[in-house]
Every structure is written in C-alpha cells, then in structure tokens.
C-alpha cells in the first residue's frame, strides 16, 4: 500500500508555551482507515489541523501525495476533506447553499448529481432547502460530513465524528466510512470511543502528551499487546490464593468469589491444563468459567499508564 500522508519530525508549540506535538513521525497508507486515539489534550486535533492548514507547525514537515503542505498547499488541500469536532455551520444558510459553497471553495465545478448522491447517502436530500438552524444535532453532524465530501476528497479527516450521535446514526456513519474506504478514500479519524476504532479502523495510532506511542495494525496490536483472562466463579469464596497456586499470575475479585488468571495470548504454553489440575488438587471447586480478551481500551490504558 502506498503512502498518501507522510509526517516527519512534526512539532507544535502554541504561543502560550504549550507543547502540543513532539517530533511526530507517521505514515498514513492510501485507502486505509486510521484511528487516532488519545486522551483530551493529547494532540489529535492539532495534528489534523496542521495537515489541513488550520494550524501552523513549529517544525517538521508534512507531505500529502508527495507534496509539501506549505509550499504546495493548493494541491494538497484540494485532496483533503475535513469534518471538524465542533458543530460549526453557517446558521442562516440552507443545506444546499452550504454544500455548494464548499464545493466551489475547493475549486470544483458544480455537479448537481454528485451533490444529490452525497445528500441522499447521508439522508439529507429531503432537507436540502432547509435552513441549517432548523436541523437537529445529528443532521448538522451529517451536514458537516456532506460538506467535507462535497469536493470529492481523496483523504478524509474526521475529528470525533460520532460525538453526541445516537447509536443508530453512529452505525450508519460507520457504514458510510467503510463505503468511502471501499472507493479508495483514505480516512483518518479521531475518536474517544475506542470501540469505534476497534469496529472500523484498519490501523490504530495511540497519541499521548503530543507523542505517538504506538502505531500498528489493529488486529496485530490486539494480538501483540492483548492479554486473555480466565475467570472462575468459585463455589466457596476464598480469602487468599493458596501457596500451591502462587506460581500462577492470579488474583481474587469480588470478595474472593471470583478467581482471575491472566495469561499471554500468544505464549506457547498457557498453563491452563496444569492450572485445572492444580485447582483440583488444592480442593478449589468452581461453578463456571469464562475467558475475556483485553480490548483496545485496555491496551490503550495500559500503554498510557506505562508512558506516564
């Protein structure tokens, strides 16, 4: 897969002295969905804003389709669509007027059938002549996506696209994003909903305190950094783990009613068979057992904790 966005040693210090980004290096592949995950103030929006031209970098460079975003900004920006985090719309304008404005602003000739397709795909066609002030929050969110798509971008940045959006609409948006990816659009999204990244991203980049901690394929990441837990529901609560089981990485939960064994997903020997035998010998009986795989959120929290 070729690289569509290449970020090299990118740093940003705001006038207040706040260091938002430190030496970011990141390559974004053409046609992928990359999720940028990080806590508030991690630098996600700053990173997106620099690539789109809204914020000026302090140092470093960004190339889009092998063109510099500063010296060749007209060509790079023409390729990019941005859906901002805030619901910023031209309150008194109509839906159609607003989208037509964006398409023209990006230098594209009018294309009524394309705009109709975009509006229909976002269930906004019926509202095309409505003033934006009359739209609901969810509709405004969809309008922002429609505006970003109105000039047929090759790269789409979505900054918290599903913030404040109901479950049904969120799923519609995920389908839309997948559909766009299938047409070759590269998608970069920031999100607070880690399950969102888990659901639709091909790759995940974790940002914390202005640095990228890890970037990897989502499946590989969960395999490499993920852990599994075996949870046993006991017949009799235990006060402590017997010495005979001390070699296992175990802990008691919920007043000793549950025993939790954490093991590495990809280790050769997970020791479950031996554990079962040892439990029997220790006279510990259990009613039920379940296994849980650590989520992207667990991995993220673990990485951020290790970093700090």
């Amino acid at each position: 897969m070729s690289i569509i966005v290449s970020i090299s040693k990118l740093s940003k210090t705001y006038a207040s002295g706040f260091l938002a980004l430190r030496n970011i290096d990141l390559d974004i592949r053409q046609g992928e969905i990359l999720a940028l995950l990080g806590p508030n103030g991690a630098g996600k929006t700053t990173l997106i804003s620099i690539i789109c031209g809204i914020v000026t970098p302090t140092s470093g460079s960004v190339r889009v389709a092998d063109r510099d975003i500063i010296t060749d900004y007209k060509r790079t920006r023409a390729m990019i669509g941005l859906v901002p985090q805030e619901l910023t719309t031209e309150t008194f304008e109509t839906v159609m007027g607003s989208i037509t404005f964006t398409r023209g602003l990006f230098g594209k000739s009018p294309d009524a059938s394309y705009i109709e397709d975009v509006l229909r795909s976002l269930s906004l066609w019926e509202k095309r002549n409505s003033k934006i002030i009359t739209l609901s929050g969810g509709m405004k969110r969809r309008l922002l996506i429609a505006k970003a798509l109105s000039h047929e971008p090759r790269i789409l940045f979505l900054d918290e696209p599903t913030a404040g959006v109901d479950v049904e609409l969120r799923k519609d948006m995920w389908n839309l994003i997948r559909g766009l990816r299938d047409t070759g659009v590269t998608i970069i999204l920031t999100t607070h909903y880690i399950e969102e990244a888990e659901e639709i991203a091909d790759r995940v980049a974790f940002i914390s305190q202005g640095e990228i901690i890890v970037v990897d394929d989502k499946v590989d990441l969960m395999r490499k950094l993920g852990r599994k837990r075996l949870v046993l529901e006991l017949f009799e609560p235990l006060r402590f783990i017997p010495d005979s089981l001390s070699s296992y990485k175990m802990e008691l939960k919920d007043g000793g009613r549950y025993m939790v064994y954490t093991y590495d997903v990809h280790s050769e020997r997970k020791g479950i068979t031996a554990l079962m035998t040892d439990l029997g010998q220790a006279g510990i009986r259990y009613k039920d057992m379940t296994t849980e795989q650590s989520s992207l959120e667990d991995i993220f929290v673990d990485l951020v904790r290790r970093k700090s």
Partner: protein
Amino acid sequence: MNFRGVFAIYKFEMARTQRTLLQTVVAPVISTSLYFVVFGSAIGAHIAEIQGVQYGAFIVPGLIMFTLLIQSISNASFGIFFPKFTGTIYEILSAPVSHLEIIIGYVGAAATKSTLVGLIILITSGIFVPLDIMHPVWMLVFLLLTAVTFSLFGFIIGIWADDFEKLQLVRLLIITPLAFLGGSFYSIDMLPDFWQNVTLFNPVLYLISGFRWSFYEIADIPIAISLGVISFFLASFVIITRWIFQTGYRLKN
C-alpha cells in the same frame, strides 16, 4: 488562481445581502431621505448656496461618502468576523485558496455592496435635488477606490475584533465622528481658521472633497492630494492585511 473559490466566497457574501435586504438597501434609502427632509428642505432652505451650489445638492457627495465608509467597514468586518465567531473559518483556512483570493472574495463582495448602496443613495438624492455630475468617470473612480479601501479596512477590523463590541468600536467611535466632521454637511471654508487647520488632519475630508469635486468641480483640497490620500490608505491597509496573513494574526494558531 482558484476563480471558483473566489466566486464561492463572493457569492456567499452577496447572498447574505439578499437575506438582509431591508437592512442593507432599504435602511440607507430611508435615512438618506430623512437627511434631505431635515437638511435639504427644512434647514437647507435657510442656508445660502455654497460656492454656487444649492445646499441640498452640496451635501449629496458627503452623504454618499459617509454611507459608503460606514457600509464598507460594516460589511467587510462582519463578513470575516462572523465565520471566526461561529468557527466556520476552518473551511476557508483549509481550502485551496490563497490569501489574495480570500481578500478578493470578501473585500470584493463588501465593496460591491457598499458601492450599490452609494449608487442607490445617488439615485434617491436625484428625487430631492437637481444633480449635476461634471466628472462621472472620476466620480466612479472615487466611489470604487473608497469602497475597496475601506472594505479592506473593515476586513482588518473583522480579523482584529474578538467580540461584537470591538467589531462596532472603530466604526462608532472613530469613523462616524470623522465622517461627520470631514465636511459631509459643510465646506471647511465655513469654519473658523483654527478648526479649518484641525480638520486638515481628518482623512475623511480628503475623500469627501475629492468626491464632491467630481460632482461640482468645487473642492476644499486639490484633487491630486485627495487621490494621494486614498492611495496612501489603500497601500497601508494592503500592507497590514499582508502582515496578518503572513503571521496568521487572530486567524491561525
């Protein structure tokens, strides 16, 4: 050149005029009519001709210039301030449009609107007083040059202002008094010597004087100096706007 981008901004700004037609077009017509009723008929009837021109006709260039200044500044400052205020400025900043193209779009639209209002006032004035425009080309040159120059000034104010109070501040506290005291309703010859000299420091005097010359060939200031002063303002505002975009002042972090 992203002509479609420039046109998109221009069209978008002009569409706002259509939405606020009463405020933009009808209000200046009414206020101009009131000026003529009060100054032209009621008071003007008791004032002698000024340099051979009937008082009602004498104030026409000043009234047009007065409205032109206020409208240019208001339209342009609001045009760029509103997207900053609502946050939609992100779209302009992330679009493939150059600084020059942004200025042409916003300032062009503001200047068009104020010029149209100026022409509407001119036509309205014709209903009340006999108009005689001796240099129509120069009249248009002054009209357009002033509209562009002060729309650019309004654009600068719109970027500088970070709240609605500041947006109105320059217009209400500086431009309006200067316009009133710049010879809109009188010739500076009518003032005592001391105030004549003070008035020479009022830049609006030069705009009104030049514009009035294009109507009646009478001027407080030589025409070349009037043109020079407008050109000086234009050059100054261009330099400031260039600096704003180069530094990202109040536009970019």
